[in-house]
């Protein structure tokens, strides 16, 4: 098969860099973990003050088609945001695509921050076409970056590197050093990984999860793709953080796995207020389960409930009419987010969540057709006779009064 290649605008020769010792050290892989090996999870991002996202978009696609789960943080992201996201998501490595200079300092800062968080088992690799010289790459690799790819590197080579360097089960990696995980978020993140993979050995950490009261109120948010669920959560987060200076929030977000392949976990990329030390966010791929959640959602949710958060959000993937995703899960309140373009009035009758949801949000209520939609949904809810609230929002608008109203309902 012909390999695809990314040509960075300043395409440099196709030269393989050398693996740093840490990444190249072969890890022993037991037969059991080989059989049940979960997908590799990576976080990709573009550094602060850099909007060049074309190369990373191409690379993300290649990764997910090769079975990797990619948490994409987007462009113009600070080292602190990147490291926070990487530790919360408990990814195996961070991939950075840098085109605006300052890469030596930036990559080094990421590596240093990871160390400081006790998360230096998370690898760092990246590229930046010709803007990163070989001399720069040598310094960066000396500073702890696993690998810098130069312009003209075939995508297949990057994937191969990721599979070799980060494909092995990590258990040996962090346990062998006998490290204790002091950072509570890091601890939760590791336990979530155990919960997601169902690993028996790491399961010990699930049992050791800190218990604290009955757990926070958990809000489930669901609705069709593109209705604005992620934006709405981000706007609610902004209001929660502003309302109380000590509040800590957790978000469990879901994105679909491609059949037999990886997943692009991209909700973080469009969230601006949720990149905060007071917000713990975890992205799960559905890994073959239909209906909006992952097979591990329940376990992860129960774990997070004991994590000391004040409020939790669970966002499903975009759902169809027949889905009712929160059936068996410990969710206290369910919000259905819709946009005015659901089709005819008849279509409304078929949406199961309209019977289940506690609050229905009609987002994008500035679009034409919103008035009709509001009337039709009101009528549909009235038939249920359960006093379900309908709130109209324009989540993309700053300080939207509809979102304010939703927030008041959400804190009560």
């Amino acid at each position: 098969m012909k390999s695809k290649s990314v040509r960075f605008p300043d395409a440099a020769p196709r030269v393989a860099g050398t693996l740093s010792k840490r990444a190249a050290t072969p890890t022993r892989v037991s037969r059991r973990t080989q059989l049940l090996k979960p997908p590799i999870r990576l976080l990709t991002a573009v550094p602060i003050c850099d909007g060049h996202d074309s190369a990373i978009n191409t690379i993300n696609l290649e990764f997910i088609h090769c079975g990797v789960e990619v948490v994409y943080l987007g462009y113009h992201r600070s080292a602190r945001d990147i490291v926070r996201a990487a530790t919360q998501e408990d990814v195996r490595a961070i991939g950075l695509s840098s085109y605006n200079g300052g890469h030596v300092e930036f990559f080094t800062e990421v590596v240093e921050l990871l160390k400081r968080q006790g998360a230096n088992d998370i690898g760092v690799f990246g590229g930046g076409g010709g803007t990163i010289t070989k001399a720069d790459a040598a310094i960066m690799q000396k500073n702890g970056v696993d690998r810098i790819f130069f312009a003209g590197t075939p995508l297949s080579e990057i994937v191969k590197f990721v599979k070799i360097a980060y494909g092995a089960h990590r258990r040996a990696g962090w346990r062998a050093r006998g490290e204790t995980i002091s950072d509570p978020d890091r601890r939760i993140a590791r336990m979530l990984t155990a919960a997601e993979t169902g690993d028996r050995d790491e399961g010990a950490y699930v049992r050791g999860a800190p218990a604290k009261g009955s757990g926070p109120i958990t809000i489930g948010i669901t609705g069709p793709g593109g209705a604005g669920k992620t934006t709405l959560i981000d706007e609610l987060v902004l209001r929660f953080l502003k309302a109380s200076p000590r509040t800590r929030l957790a978000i469990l977000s879901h994105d679909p796995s491609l059949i037999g392949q990886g997943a692009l976990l991209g909700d973080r990329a469009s969230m601006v207020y949720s990149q905060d030390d007071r917000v713990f966010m975890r992205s799960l791929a559905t890994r073959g389960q239909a209906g909006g959640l992952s097979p591990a959602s329940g376990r992860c949710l129960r774990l997070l409930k004991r994590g000391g958060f004040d409020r939790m959000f669970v966002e499903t993937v975009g759902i169809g009419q027949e889905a009712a995703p929160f059936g068996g899960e410990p969710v206290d309140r369910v919000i259905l987010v819709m946009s005015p373009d659901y089709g005819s009035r008849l279509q409304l009758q078929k949406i199961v969540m309209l019977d289940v949801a506690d609050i229905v949000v009609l987002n994008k209520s500035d679009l034409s057709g919103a008035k009709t939609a509001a009337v039709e949904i009101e009528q549909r809810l009235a038939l249920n006779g359960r006093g379900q609230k309908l709130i109209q929002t324009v989540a993309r608008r700053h300080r939207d009064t509809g979102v304010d109203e939703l927030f008041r309902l959400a804190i009560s």
Partner: protein
Amino acid sequence: MSVLAQVTKAVEGFNRFVEQQVSQARSDSQFGEQLMARWQAARGGLGTVTIPTALKLPRLALPLTDEPGEVARYLYGEGLPGEFPFVNAAYREMYLVNAGAKNTEEPTRLFAGLALAEDTNHRFHYLTRHQKNIRLSTAFDGPTLYGLDSDADGVFGKIGEGGVALDTMEDMERLYAGFPLSGEHFSVSMTINGPAPIILAMYVAAAKRRFGPEVVSTLRGTIQADILKEVQAQNEIIFPIEASLRFLADMVEHTTTHLPRWYPISISGYHIAEAGATPVQQAAYTLSNGFTYVELFRDRGLEVKRFGPRLSFFLDCGLDIEYVALARVCRKLWAIGMRDVFGADPPAQLFKLHTQTSGRSLIAQESKNNLTRTAIELVLACLNATNSCHSNSADEPFTTPSEEYVRLAANSQAILLEESGLFKFMMNTLAGSPGMKIVERAVEEGILVEFREIDRLGGVLPAIDQRYQRSQIQAAAHRYEQQINDGTRPIIGLNRYRDETNAAPAVKVVRTPRRKKQLQVDRLEKFKHRNRARTERALDRLATVVESGGNVFKELIHTVECCSLGQITGRLHECVGRHRPMV
């Protein structure tokens, strides 16, 4: 009917009108005779020039035809240079030696920005040391482009990389020190978008501090401030789109009154093309963004007559054949749209164009080949009668351009326009070839197809919301990469005639040393400390203006006296929120 639908209709109507004139010229002998009389007069009135080899030439080349239909198609359909619909040129004589008073400036405008303000100032003086007309073009570093201060979390490594670091109006004073800001032959251009109003306010404040308040009305230059293309392609937007557009309109309103020689927006296709768009997409999105701005300013109550002539454009010029005629078509469509949809007079019908050669077409392998690429692109840009031009340095794929390559790039323009006889003696030397006309038609039709699609989505802003432009650009970028990969798009030295022995570029890399970065941070801290008693009050006043719907730009000219860029964007974020990235 949306503005784009109206423009499309106007263009179709114009083309029908031209064809009617063509058939009338052929069938109606009286009309035909009038036309031929006009044609003879135009021919007879041409000045002549004797070139150094003693050959005598007219100053404008006209088609050698006496067929009334063809004459009608030429005079109505493309117009003489400087005449509606300006297909051949915005002005009559463009680059000609001893051209009329309207356009006496050489088109060279070179982009520079490196390290700290004084370093860029030094580069500016170096670049313009032989120029009668001083035309500076400024690149800013990453933190400045994103409205962050140099002491912001995690940006230290980016200070002064890829452009000049600018935090305060004092940096602005250093940046243009020693230049006559109000001079007849001086103009400055600033490539910045998200925080553009703050940066221009700093420029105005710095100029006032140096020359007194009366300097303001004489300031001449351009600021990019094109928010729509940022959302579509370059991702350097910091406030939500609505708020960004409001700040922009405030700035346009203020400058059209108080800085009448200023161009407050440069509607740009460059970044759209660099992000991967095809030439047709570049032209279509640039024009449609332009018409959207005009609609926005008009709906705010600004007069097209006032602001129309203060709009300028910025296009990429690459190696694809569309570039033979791309700007020619843009001038035509803009003129028709402005005249027929917005009722603009001739000064507001002009598509005033700055062109930059394609950065994306340059590669690191055997990088001296980039000199040839840029030279070809320069010829194409001048064939399109661009009003000003930047030629890229061959070392740009890996570094902020070094003086050696900047000099070569500047010289390439001088060689083309001053040394070669191609453009300096006669207008339209190569215009109107059959191939050029064919490309024009194909490009125009392609642009109208895009206009119809954007209109179908509800116009430019709704199309942005639906990610239309972004996904089209990304798909084109993907195709481009695939073509390079499978060899259908040959790139010499990369996928063809590759020199394996000499692959590593041996070019000096320009970087900002650590001590300079630290110096910038120290200066900023001193500024903040010195002004600490005034900062909060100034920011509060700014916030009040934002909330009350006043003119934010006018207030910013005061705010920048005692607040840094980052302090101002921080407060504005509190008022209007942050831009939510599109992915």
